[in-house]
């Protein structure tokens, strides 16, 4: 499957099948800090991703404001 990552923007190929939570762990990310989007839909951690799926791992942590 093709996985699109942010910060910095890049694409990586990851072999399937793989559950969403395992993909997030495989990439060394925290599931609290990302959303996983297949096509244009959110998917939960137990969903099995297949070769050929188009996946975006979207970071959700933003920061900067000091107040």
């Amino acid at each position, binding site marked *: 499957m093709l996985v699109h990552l*942010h*910060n910095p*923007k890049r694409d990586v190929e990851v072999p399937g099948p793989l559950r969403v939570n395992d993909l997030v762990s495989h990439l060394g990310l*925290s*599931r*609290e*800090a*990302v*959303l996983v*989007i297949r096509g*244009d*839909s*959110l*998917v*939960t*951690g*137990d*969903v099995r991703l297949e070769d050929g799926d188009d996946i975006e791992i*979207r*970071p*959700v*942590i*933003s*920061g*900067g*404001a*000091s*107040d």
Partner: protein
Amino acid sequence: MRCRRCTQPAIIEIRRHRASFCTECFLHHCREQVRRAIDKHRMIAPDERVLVAISGGKDSLALWDILLDLDYEVDGVYLGLGIDDYSKESQGFAERYADSRGAKLHVVDIPTEHGFAIPDAARATKRVPCSACGLSKRHLLNRAAIDGGYDVLATGHNLDDEAAVLFGNVLQWHVDYLARQRPTLPAAEGFARRVKPLIRMGERETAAYCVVKRIDYIVEECPMAAGNKHLRYKEVLNQIEERTPGAKATFYLQFLNEMLPHLDNVAEEERAQVGTCSRCGAPSSQEICAFCKLVEKVG
């Protein structure tokens, strides 16, 4: 995984609630979290005019969308920070959202109206950019609310933001900052009421809300914020949350319930010291307010 409310297939799990939701029930959940925060902390009365601070990011656009859906009278204000392409891009997201909802968006461009950009201010003050940015936002957003005759200024600070700020304040025992860290800061002479209706929503939920509602927002992080201490605090808190779901919410919401009432006198004393800036007339505890000092340094 199935939705807790209706048993349809779930699109998101929220571990701290031990719940998963389908699209419709998730949107209902988000609106309910905001409604509960507004009611509990007396943020907005039904007939009040609200100005929401819009950055073009997920939190502020989700907040604007939810407040509109809850039938509040709410306009937006975007502050142009002068951070090159990032500011132009984020303004584009804010304007496109406003157009899509037929909502009114005020734009205050700091370089045009005040003669400096945030990176200039950071260089002049020799402090991190987020410091000059936060100071400018507090001053100019309040001014926009007062000048526009709004009753309330709403910001998109979410549960993760508030937990990270609380963590930082506790690490250094900044008692005066802790006393000020309230979901609702009451109106006072020269101050609009400031409210944070997203305090019951984590930033994973606000991002998910935007994905589900097809709200386009700027995903990339502000280039000035890279490596700042609040991002580090969030990483630490997320490590704890991974092992103990609900830890962030307990940390922050119990602070509001258990600790903040003990700090009422500190906040009261601080409010009593607020006077007026001799240059711009804004509320200030000094003769010249921090924003006017900043403008002077950059100039």
